[in-house]
């Protein structure tokens, strides 16, 4: 059994254990144990990975293992990680961990909630560790479908509508993906599904012209690519706290990760040729999401549109097709994952107290619930790219990287994207000013209690991660950059 597979196995074991849990205490205990194990495991993995690299192992993917699965289609269960996957695994573990704590008092049906939650996580982990197109796709879909029930059962507001919309749109994306995976498989010779091996082949450019947009759009739907982002506001608004966290924090990253790992890596020629189309779309995403967020009054909508903007930046950076921007993209995935999770966690906690998410109905909460208030400010600052917090490093890496591309379109779009930092500031400060500062709007809010220990655990973990990433970024950006180099090398060779 390969070391990496443990990442998939632990959630499944947790699932199994949860099935026998009797009361809420046991359920929480099991879930927390599973999540903690995963967190520890990802720490160990990071250590091992860096160690291995330090030892001079410079193969593309480490901890490789292949297990033949479906011989007629050359499907293997192949695993392997590079710096990008390790970064994503850390992110997932952190968010799983905090997500479990954030849903400590989930109601009703706590057992079912965690069952689906862990199933979803096993899909996410699987997606990040596999390098076989089929397995990747399978895990991708495993990660999507529990969403429906998680939102539909434990959500709020127009949950049925949102859940259905989200599921259908994401499945629409995965339909495009399935087609493109088949196309990649057959046009690359039809004898391997392994990413690394396909990367050695040459897919005919005529095929790439169709497959690249399919793949990119397929992943783009999950990455909230304009105009396929509309599931995001509704979905996030209706989802329960932990699900919003996991979804915005990790699942949306699947899109970016896939776009970069599959679309760009395997089809560099078409990427060069068609980048401009998607650059325009992502550029629109960035600015459009930000502007939309400005006028929203529901906290979750604000954050969802903000996610559209930030995730747009991820895809935008990937499409710049250079090393710096791509590193920035991965950093942005991490950073956005952490801070948006923090946001959603806090929104959930605030909502749990005030029973409203409308910023017009809140005010002066800083005085009443200072812990949550301060944490919200920190999340906001991370979101608007304050140095020392994660957002800054990621965004700057993206902007500097994007600016290295000298095409007129890239230039213009980069400058347009840069302007988003101002708009981000506008909507973040608007929210902070409205809900935390000022006078208390609702006298009933005067008696709210501040965060409980599990909520503190969740929030503090995320804040620590955000600060750590923001103030000491070098080790992780080095790790990512080293893994991106081969991909960029292939891109350069395709020019």
């Amino acid at each position, binding site marked *: 059994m390969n070391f990496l597979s443990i990442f998939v196995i632990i959630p499944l074991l947790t699932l199994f254990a949860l099935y026998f849990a009797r009361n809420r205490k046991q359920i929480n205990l099991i879930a927390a144990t599973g999540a903690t194990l995963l967190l520890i495991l990802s720490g160990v993995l990071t250590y091992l990975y860096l160690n291995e690299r330090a030892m001079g192992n410079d193969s593309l993917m480490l901890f490789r293992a292949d297990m033949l699965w*479906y011989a007629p289609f050359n499907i293997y269960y192949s695993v392997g990680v590079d710096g990008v996957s390790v970064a994503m695994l850390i992110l997932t573990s952190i968010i799983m961990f905090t997500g479990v704590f954030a849903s400590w008092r989930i109601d009703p049906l706590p057992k079912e909630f965690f069952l689906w939650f862990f199933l979803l996580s096993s899909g996410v982990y699987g997606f990040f560790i596999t390098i076989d197109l089929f397995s990747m796709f*399978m895990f991708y879909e495993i990660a999507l*479908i529990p969403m429906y*029930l998680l939102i539909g059962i434990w959500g709020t507001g127009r949950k049925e509508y949102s859940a*259905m919309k989200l*599921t*259908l749109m994401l*499945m629409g994306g995965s*339909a495009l993906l399935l087609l493109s995976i088949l196309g990649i498989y*057959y046009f690359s010779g039809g004898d391997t599904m392994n990413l690394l091996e396909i990367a050695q082949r040459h897919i005919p450019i005529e095929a790439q012209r169709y497959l690249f947009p399919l793949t990119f759009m397929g992943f783009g739907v999950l990455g909230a690519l304009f105009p396929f982002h509309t599931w995001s506001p509704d979905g996030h608004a209706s989802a329960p706290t932990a699900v919003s966290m996991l979804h915005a924090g990790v699942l949306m990253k699947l899109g970016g990760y896939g776009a970069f790992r599959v679309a760009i890596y395997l089809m560099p020629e078409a990427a060069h040729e068609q980048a401009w189309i998607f650059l325009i779309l992502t550029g629109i995403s960035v600015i459009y999401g930000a502007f939309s967020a400005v006028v929203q009054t529901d906290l979750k909508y604000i954050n969802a549109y903000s996610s559209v903007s930030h995730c747009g930046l991820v895809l935008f950076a990937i499409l710049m097709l250079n090393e710096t921007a791509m590193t920035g993209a991965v950093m942005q995935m991490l950073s956005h994952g952490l801070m948006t999770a923090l946001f959603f966690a806090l929104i959930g906690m605030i909502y749990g107290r005030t029973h409203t998410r409308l910023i017009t109905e809140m005010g002066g909460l800083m005085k009443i619930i200072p812990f949550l208030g301060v944490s919200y400010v920190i999340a906001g600052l991370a979101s608007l790219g304050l140095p020392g917090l994660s957002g800054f490093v990621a965004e700057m890496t993206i902007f500097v990287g994007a600016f290295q591309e000298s095409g007129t379109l890239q230039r213009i779009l980069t400058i347009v994207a840069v302007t988003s930092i101002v708009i981000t500031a506008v909507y973040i400060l608007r929210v902070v000013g409205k809900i935390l500062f000022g006078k208390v709007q609702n006298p009933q809010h005067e008696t709210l209690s501040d965060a409980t220990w599990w909520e503190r655990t969740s929030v503090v973990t995320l804040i620590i991660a955000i600060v750590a990433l923001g103030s000491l970024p070098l080790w992780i950006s080095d790790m990512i950059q080293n893994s991106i180099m081969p991909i960029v090398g292939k891109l350069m060779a395709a020019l």
Partner: protein
Amino acid sequence: MNYSVFLQLHDELSLLVVMVILLTFDISVSIRRGRYIQPLAIVLLTIHTLLNAFPRDAFEVAGGMYQYFPMHTYVKTILNIGTIIVFLQANKWLNNKDSMIRRGEFYFITLSTLFGLYIMLSAGHFLLFFIGIEMASIPMATLVAFNKYQHKSAEAGAKFILSTVFASGISLYGISMIYGTTGTLYFDDLLPLIVGGPMQIMSFVFFAVGLFFKISLVPFHLWTPDVYEGAPTPVTAYLSVVSKGAAAFVLFTLFTRVFGNLIDEWQSILYGLIIISITLANVFAIRQQNIKRFMAFSSISQAGYLMLGVISASTTGMSSLVYYVLVYLFSNLAIFGVITIIENNTGKVAIKDYNGLYQTNPKLSAIMMFALFSLAGIPPFAGFFSKFFIFAAAAEQGFYVLVFIALLNTIISLYYYLLIVKAMFLRKSDEPIERITSDIPARISLVICLLAIVFAGLLSAVYQQIAAYSFI
């Protein structure tokens, strides 16, 4: 006249033995004792299945009238398993007052339609084939009308027999013209003789209609929802998986082996039919309120996906097709199992009756949901794999646009499958279906289906076994 050749027909002979034993038993025992026919039938059929589960070398009997390929063993085993599961699920329904007296007939007729399917599968001659297909459909009508005092069942029987005979009339006319243009009815002899030309194409189309009808592709599907709704639920289950699966497989072998030279024609026919079948069925399924009717449209759309395997006309296509049938069988039977249990206990078949089912019957609704996910092609359930493979088979032959359309339709299908899930899990009901204690055989059937849904995909051995004997 060496009749020892019959001994080679293991499958048919042992099924015949089962049938004869059951008939004899039914005739000879009293009604009260008659309840033993149920375990007897299941056990016998299981033994029959196990005995014949191992492929042999290919052979021909009666100058090619009967042809055996190792693949047939798998297909027949799949049909057997489907039948066993249907028997398990039918148990409780057959024990109620109305149908108790007709128990023996149910088993006998079901098995004789199965026998018809066997013949249809292994036929190497149009005559045998035609007899097979008729044997699978005409007695079927009596099963559809099994609840003969219920208006719906009787009406469904009438509709079924009328439309099936109409379709086989057209088909028969087609066969006659095939004969007229070629002079032979042996499949192997026909292949070089069918070369095109208006009359052959026309006769081919006439003939194919009979099969399209059985698989219920649009526009030959109109009987399906009515019959599915009216027929007793186990019969619907049988119709939707066993006879459809066999017909799909036969369609593949016939099209590739007999009409191989008309590949351009039938590929374009199927191309159109797949698109309209999947799309139209999906559009219709959305608005259904009766779950059996809903399943009818679902099965029409699934038939469209099945045809993706046929249109690819490759060994991959065949193995994907058979695998798809296998997975589809388990998924569909799981759903029908739940429907049967609920219908037997409460008589409710409307989708809105399923509101809040999870609160009262968590296990039933969970199984139902897994099966629905499997049908929709959601991993890790087997349906995901079967869908992937069948798309892969079509894509391998370059049908990318078709695969794309089919994929877009999977979204709609996911939508309506989720409607059921929504009803069971998300909705609350004022008067939900009460807690149901299901009968043991039905439970066994559900467990079998569930295991299959989960493991048929994850364990690649199933597919690889099938792939090993695929031919074209």
